[in-house]
């Protein structure tokens, strides 16, 4: 082998910057910042998430308001507003963008930086929380414009948005788990089918006492039932179609929060396990 001494150039004069770990919070903020910036650049992914729930909300109350008023003595506009919001926030995530990153190698580029691994997921979820809250607000405004009145006032509306946002956030655990496990865009899109049993095998269109047989049994163990009940309690103190309850229904709100936490415990565990598998150097 020939000596290389002559070929090696002089060293650089002085280091201008020193690379260092940025810190957990900065890592989350950096990943979230990029994800949030992408959202308005993909209007095709956001606009349907807004239009579809508003369309069905207006359609359903137009078609069923009179019937439900006569049959169950409930204000269907108020009853269905939480459903519209849940439709808007469920399944909205950056999981597809994450798959794109995995497929085109950008995820590897991030992995070569000193970024901590957990912020790669938490940053995306922070962006999701921002987006789902932003989606819940216009749906809520449509409800108000149609005459829905919140018995809990403005504070109730804020809690309504927070609970909806938290639900949207914990649901993202499922598409993220699939995205990180498979790296396959088709599988992530297919995760949308989970939306149907969770949102429809519940008190989506009728109060719990009106459900019969197996549907009632499934609805009783479906966290969505308790989430809808909690959200409805903020709008109306007559959430079941029976006797009016208290203005702030702590039981209904507590059960909704518990249902969100229980669902989140499962979905976020799956997502974190999938993240660990994805970032483990094989």
């Amino acid at each position, binding site marked *: *082998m020939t000596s290389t001494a002559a070929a090696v150039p002089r*060293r650089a004069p002085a280091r201008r910057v020193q*690379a260092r770990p940025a810190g957990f919070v900065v890592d989350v903020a950096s990943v979230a910042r990029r994800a949030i910036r992408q959202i308005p650049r993909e209007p095709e992914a956001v606009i349907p998430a807004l239009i579809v729930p508003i369309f069905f909300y207006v359609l359903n109350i137009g078609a069923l308001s009179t019937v439900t008023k006569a049959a169950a003595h409930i204000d269907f506009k108020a009853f269905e507003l939480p459903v519209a919001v849940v439709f808007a926030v469920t399944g909205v995530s950056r999981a597809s963008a994450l798959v794109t990153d995995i497929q085109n190698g950008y995820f*590897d580029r991030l992995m070569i930086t*000193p970024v901590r691994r957990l912020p790669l997921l938490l940053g995306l979820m922070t962006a999701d929380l921002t987006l789902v809250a932003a989606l819940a607000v216009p749906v809520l405004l449509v409800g108000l414009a149609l005459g829905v009145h919140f018995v809990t006032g403005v504070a109730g509306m804020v809690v309504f948005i927070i609970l909806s946002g938290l639900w949207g956030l914990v649901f993202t655990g499922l598409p993220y788990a699939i995205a990180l496990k498979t790296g396959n865009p088709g599988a992530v899109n297919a995760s949308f089918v989970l939306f149907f049993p969770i949102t429809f095998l519940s008190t989506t269109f009728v109060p719990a006492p009106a459900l019969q047989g197996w549907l009632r049994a499934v609805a009783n163990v479906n966290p969505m039932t308790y989430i809808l009940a909690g959200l409805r309690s903020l709008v109306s103190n007559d959430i079941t179609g029976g006797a009016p309850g208290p203005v702030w229904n702590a039981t209904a709100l507590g059960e909704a929060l518990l249902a969100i936490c229980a669902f989140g415990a499962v979905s976020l565990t799956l997502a974190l396990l999938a993240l660990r598998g994805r970032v483990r150097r094989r």
Partner: protein
Amino acid sequence: MTDTAVATEDIARQFGDFWAVQGVDLAIPAGEIYGFLGPNGAGKSTLVRMLCTLLRPTRGRGLVAGHDVARHPERVRLRIGVALQDAALDDRQTGRELLDLQGRLYGLRRDERNERVAQVLRLVDIGSAIDRQIKTYSGGMKRRLDLAAALIHDPDIVFLDEPTTGLDPESRAAVWEEVRMLNEEHGTTIFLTTQYLEEADELAHRVGIISRGRIVAEGTPEALKRTVGTDVVVARLEHMSEATLEALRSVPGVDEVVADRSEVMVHADDGAAVMSPVAVALHGAGAAVVSLTLRTPTLDDVFLHLTGSHLEAEETGDGAPDEGHAPAAGFQPAPPP
């Protein structure tokens, strides 16, 4: 920084039953451009992915900037910049946003990021496109932005995995120039994989030739080429004469002189060293010289000598566009009536 930028001892990587890298030893001094030359599937990218902490070695050891890639990957990551085989970019960001995000992830403050982005863009010129979304970039611009992103934190060692594969000659020359400047002006160590002989020859101080997961030869491009045969000084003359041939045979260092019509091939171990004496001998013999050239063996000759096949013959193609399109019928001249 340690004097050895990259060192490996018997580093190897297995996928299932297949050994992609079968025990490679490297010692790359700081400040060197090391070219890792081999066909597709030879193990180049696997080795790079191990050295830049994306893959764990199955056996052996790799030290980058003095840190073990398996035991202290986080320390290695702070010292290296990497541009992987396919430009790994996010099409929906602008070039500047992508570079800024890279800077943030390396813990750079805002003033440091702004300064580094400006410095990197002086080296890797992307022009006004830097503020456009990356989806509007050409292949060459993407590769150069990828290179810029690898440099944002001023790394000591840069890994470039096939940085010009699929690029047109002009873009390729631009990337070469940027790599050269990076090495010469900043002293950055560069580990470059390539399947192009010309690229290794043009850029690398030393070349390692890899075939089927093993290094089969290593050295400067010139030294490697000399291992497969002698240089040839080719003299084209207006008139051939026996006296001229005798004069050439008497030049020290010349192994053989072969006349072929108006050309004389002068074989020598070190062609560059005999060029001047050959010119003097031709002048002394009164020969009218039309041209005098030195032809050295190519790295392809080296690869052929070591592996029994041509480098290109082992490749699976780099996706270059097909240039042999037939003209569309509509553009053909109308037949005579």
